[in-house]
């Protein structure tokens, strides 16, 4: 009799262990935990793109809704950021750890959660979409227009054309700063918008016209100084370091640790800077490079961040 009771108790224990443990785990994770949460929790499995990338890679939320995104990193260290314009960077998350962010988005639009730590050869494909919709508005959120890119397209500028190399031209920005007061600078060269759509080579032509008595070496250095203004901030340097340096190198020399794995060798900025328009660099950042491994960052960076990055590329191009 006692043995029968004992056997029954033991059998119940076994069932509890073998059925109860997995059921409890799954029930807690997928039912109880979300039920206890104050707001919606979205668990996002985070792996290198070769193993699935973000799962899910599309999250929908309503304007004003508070959600918690939980990035469970599974394989290698990833850096999770959300953009554009949200200034959310969870930093590096090691395997087995979970990065968590609770946010309330008040502006409808398409945002991107992405990895900003080089994690695999397909690192740049590691992106997911956070779509914030206004339930009271009809239709889905349209991608915002980009006047700079639209202007390039309207002018039939080939964004992906092979750049002319600046061989033998080695301007000195510091020397240009010292010589700046000694030369007459045309007003359009002082206009950042003009500089954005013109190459330094074109700027040099304008400077020569105003300063026929000055040597070309001085004018070249002044041009470099003008194009590499303003001095980059720490934030923009970090943005470059996290998102660009893996391919283009810390100093923009095209020698990043991932440079050998890209379809085309990443450009060294100094090699092409003299004949490069800033708006083309901007377009490449925002739209990506066709036929290369240069990803689009238009869904990650704001327009302002892309503009500041272009400034930083000039800064890196001229010593």
């Amino acid at each position, binding site marked *: 009799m006692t043995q029968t009771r*004992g056997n029954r108790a033991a059998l119940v224990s076994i069932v509890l262990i073998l059925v109860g443990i997995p059921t409890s785990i799954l029930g807690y994770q997928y039912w109880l935990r979300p039920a206890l949460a104050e707001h919606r929790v979205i668990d996002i499995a985070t792996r290198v793109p070769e193993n699935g990338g973000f799962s899910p890679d599309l999250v929908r939320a309503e304007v004003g809704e508070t959600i918690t995104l939980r990035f469970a990193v*599974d394989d290698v260290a990833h850096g999770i950021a959300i953009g554009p314009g949200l200034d959310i960077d969870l930093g590096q998350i090691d*395997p087995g750890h979970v990065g968590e962010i609770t946010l309330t988005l008040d502006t409808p639009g398409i945002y991107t959660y992405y990895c900003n730590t080089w994690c695999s050869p397909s690192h740049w494909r590691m992106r997911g979409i956070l779509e914030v919709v206004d339930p009271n508005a009809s239709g889905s959120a349209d991608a915002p227009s980009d006047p700079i890119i639209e202007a390039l397209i309207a002018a039939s500028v080939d964004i992906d054309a092979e750049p002319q190399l600046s061989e033998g031209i080695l301007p000195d920005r510091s020397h240009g700063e010292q010589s700046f007061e000694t030369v007459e600078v045309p007003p359009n060269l002082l206009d950042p918008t003009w500089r954005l759509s013109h190459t330094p080579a074109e700027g040099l032509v304008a400077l020569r016209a105003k300063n026929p008595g000055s040597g070309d070496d001085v004018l070249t250095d002044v041009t470099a100084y003008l194009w590499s203004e303003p001095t980059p901030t720490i934030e923009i340097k970090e943005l470059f370091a996290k998102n660009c340096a893996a391919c283009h190198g810390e100093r923009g020399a095209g020698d990043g640790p991932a440079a050998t794995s890209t379809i085309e060798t990443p450009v060294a900025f100094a090699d092409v800077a003299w004949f490069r328009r800033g708006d083309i660099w901007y377009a490449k950042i925002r739209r990506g490079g066709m036929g290369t491994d240069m990803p689009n960052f238009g869904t990650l960076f704001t327009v302002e961040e892309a503009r500041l990055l272009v400034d930083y590329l000039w800064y890196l191009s001229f010593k």
Partner: protein
Amino acid sequence: MRQSPTDGGRLDVLGRMPRLRRVVLSRAFQPVLMLLLLAPFALAVVAGLLGTSAGNRNFGIVFVWIVWWAVLMVLLVPGLGRVWCTVCPIPAPGEWIQRRGIIGGVAKLRTLGLRWPRRLRNMWVQNAGFLMLALFSTIILTRPSVSAAVIVGLTGTAVGMSLLFEKRTFCKYVCPIGGFIGLYSMVAPIELRVRDAQVCVDHRSKDCITGNENGYGCPWMIYPGKLDRNLDCGFCTECLKTCTMDNVVINLRRPGTDLGKPVSAKRIDEAFKALIMLACSIIYPAVLFGPWATVKEWAGIESFGGWLIYAAAFLTATLVFMPGLFWLAVSRGQKRSCSGLTIRQAFNEYAHALIPLGLASWIAFSVGFALTNGSYALAAISDPLGWGWNLFGTREAGWTPYLSGTAPAIQAAILLGGLIFSVRTSLRIGFRHDPSGTTTMQATAPVAAFLLACTLILLRLYLG
């Protein structure tokens, strides 16, 4: 109850502790312990299959290969011998199916009752199984899903064998873990024995073999009356329950009492078990902690070709190189000895001298491993699947190696203790065959040199 004997320095533990005796004699004793252990192992399997693939954050890896392994090798085996086999949940489902019950099922077992092939009634299958696990250990120890598959595979094999073969055939002849636990349990200061072998001879019903209403006949197919070493006994305590003559006891004893007893010339499997274990205890720290990154990559199967090289080197080291060197040492000693032993006989007997050093080497390895990685347990308890839970508020506990400055000294002390124990064992074997002691030193000196060489290699690995 009879008085506790103190024969040969032995102390009847249960005689001194009647409450514990009542617990052990209960038929629920072993099943309850197995059930208690089944829960964390089931969680380890679920975590391994569903949880994060980051081993250091997965309960399946942290619990099994850091916590369990350290407890097993540092505490249970050296302190309590085969006691893990008492509580091991891996054979439990198969045994319960056989018995059609958990706490005292029916006497007739549900099994085809096949007998294990005579040629395999030794440790060779266990040796092969351990080598297989060892060959893949770097992925078993780091990949939760693989670790879970190993546990499920062992349990499934145990269940299958329970349906086909008699009693605990799996545990006795196949389990790769039970093999080395049995070997090293001979060092332990605890044993299950009969008080008086003659009582067993005279006792006609032999309840310890047939079983009775108090318990099963020995699941390990042993006649306790002839049990003289821990290697063969699974410590399941059934004979304690079934013995109507109160003739079975659990003794505290001097550590290593089983070592140096006569070994059959046929039992070269035991000698190889000791050599394989000692060789692995050298190879493991060399691969895992050594400066040879390429070897570690090969062992981690980062390339199949590299792993093949590693596997060939590993098997050569464990099955040819170490046994070959030991054979040379033993044969050199026997040439100078007047013991009259054949080389093969001496090889088997002196292999017992490898056991204390082998155990010490595994303890040293496990102590270092546990001190270095034990802190992972804090996070794994709170977040067993790496899903971001924080059940006990310790999820963010960082990796903290403990006693990193003193661990090498602790490891060195353990190794030196093992060396002394092993040399004493070899001397004991030598004196048994040469009571006059005239050639004992000559016979044992090469074996001692072999032991010293192994110890020096290990000290070099741990002390740098």
